[in-house]
C-alpha cells in the first residue's frame, strides 16, 4: 500500500465512511464534516501511522490530500537517508 492509500484508509476510519475514495486535489470541506478541527485529527493520525512529525511550516503549505501524501513521502524518504 502506498502512502496515499494509507491516508485514504485513515480518512475512512476518521469519517466512519467506507465509501471514501480520495482524489489528490481534494481539500477541507470536500467531505461532509471535514473542517479545520478534522484536519488536526487527520494530521495527528498520519503522524502516528507513519511515525513522523510535521513541522508547522510544512502544515502551512498543505492545501490538498495530494500535498499531505507528498509531505509524508518526503518525510519517509528523508528518514531513510
Amino acid at each position, binding site marked *: 500500500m502506498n502512502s496515499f492509500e494509507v491516508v485514504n484508509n485513515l480518512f475512512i476510519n476518521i469519517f466512519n465512511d467506507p465509501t471514501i475514495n480520495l482524489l489528490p486535489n481534494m481539500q477541507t470541506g470536500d467531505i461532509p*464534516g471535514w*473542517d*479545520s*478541527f478534522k484536519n488536526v485529527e487527520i494530521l*495527528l493520525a498520519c503522524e502516528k501511522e507513519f511515525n513522523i512529525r*510535521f513541522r508547522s*511550516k510544512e502544515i*502551512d503549505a498543505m492545501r490538498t490530500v495530494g500535498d499531505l501524501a507528498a509531505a509524508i513521502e518526503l518525510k519517509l524518504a528523508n528518514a531513510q537517508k
Partner: protein
Amino acid sequence: MMLGTFFTDVISRYPKNIALVFGDQEVTYEILYAKAQDLIQSHTFSASPFVVIRGERTLEEYIAIAACWISSKPYIPLNPKFSESRCQQILSQLQNVAPEQLDSLAYIIFTSGTTGAPKGVPIHQSQVAQYALAMQKNINPMAEDVMLQIHDFSFDYSVMELVLAWTNGAKLIHVPNDKVVMAPRYVQDNNVTIWMSVPSLASMGYRLGMMPSNSLPTLRASIFSGEALNYETIRHFSLAAPNSKLLNLHGITEATVTDTFYEIDREMLNEEIPQNTSYQVIPMGWPHFGIEMELFNPNSSESVDGVGELCISGKQVTDGYLNNPDLNIQRFFDFDGKRWLRTGDLAEYSHEYGYCYRGRADRQIKFKGYRIELQDIESALRNVSKSDLVCAVPYPVLEDGTIEGLVGVIGKPPKGDLNVDQLLDALPNILPSYMVPAKVLMIDEMPLSINGKVDFKAVQDWVKARLI
C-alpha cells in the same frame, strides 16, 4: 501619544527585527515600514478616508494595517465568514460617516447587535496607544518575544496580538485560518513565548492530544480572554506550559480589547477539581492602568454591593457607537461626573480576587420563580462533562415568554462518548434542583460564532428543532 508615533519609534529602534513570519517569508520592521510607505503613497490608499480590510489575513492586509497605524487612517475589518448582506450593511453604514468622525480613528470594528444589525465601535489611535501602555505595564512584552497571530482581524483579539508584538519590536507568526487549531504545534516549532487566545482554543488543543504535560515549555506568559475561563481548561494548560505566567483578562470591544488583569495562582491548580469555589470560573481581577470599574444595577445608574453589572469608565472606552444614538443611550450613562459603559457582564467584587465573573446580564432567566444565570448551569455542565463547549437553553418557552424547562447541550468529545445518564445523576450534587436541566443532549458540532464563542441562538434553534 498616538499609535503611529509608538509604532514608528519601534521601527527605528528595531529595524532588523522580524515583525512578521508569513509562511516562508520573514518581514523585518524596516521592510514592513517600506512596504507600508509604498501603500501610503498609492492613489487608492490616499484617496479613501478609511481602508476596508476584507479579512482574508493575507500579507497585504498586514501591510495595510501597518500603513493605517503609520498614517493615522482607520481600517474597517470585514470577515470572509460574514454573509454578503452583513458586509453590505456595514459598508452602507460607512457611507453616512462624516470625515470628522474618522479623525484620528484607528479602526471601526462591527459587532453583532441584539437586533442582528451590525453596530460599529470606533476606537481612536490614542485609545490603542493607551491600551499598548497598559499591556506593557501588565505583560512587559520585549523585542525578543515571539507570538502567534491567529485571530480574525474582525475580532479585536487581533488588535491585542498586533499591539503586543508591533509596539514592542517582537515577532508575530501568522497561523493560517484553517490551521488555527494546530496553534500548539506553531508554539513548539517557533519557540513562541507569549500565548494569546480564547479559552476554547486551549481546551480544543488539549482534547486533541496536542498539549501533553510540558509540551509548551517556551511560553513565559499566557493570556486568556474573550470568554469565561474555567478551571479544567487552565489546569490542563498550566501543566502543558510549566514556565508560563497564566493571565485572565476581561475584555469588550467598546473598551479597546481588554480592561482587567488577573494572574492565576498556580498553587490553586494542583487538584483535579477546584479547592476554592472562586476558581471554578477564573477571576477577572482588577482594572488595568487607566481603567475604572464599578458595579451598577443593570436597569439603572444605581451603584450596587454584591452582584451587579460591570461598568467601565476611562480613556479606553469608545466615544460611542457609530451613528447609533439610541444604542448609545442604552449602553452609556453618566455617574459621579464620569461617563460609564455597560458591559452586559455581571460581576462581584472580592478583595482577594478582584472582579469575578457572574454571567451575562442578558442571560439571566426566571424559571419556577427563581432568578437563574444560565452560565451557572453551564459551569456545572462543564464540571461534570469535562467539556468546554456547553450551553444551557431554556426550553420549552411559551409564547408569553414563560419558561417551562431547561435543556443542557454538550459538545461531543472528539474521541469516545459521554454517558448522559451519569451526567444527569451528577448534576443534582452541584446544582439546586430547580436548575438541573430536564434533558442533556449531545451535539456533534457545537455552533460557534465567527469569534469562536458558543452561538447561544443557534444552539437554541437546534434544541427547538430536535425536541419539537
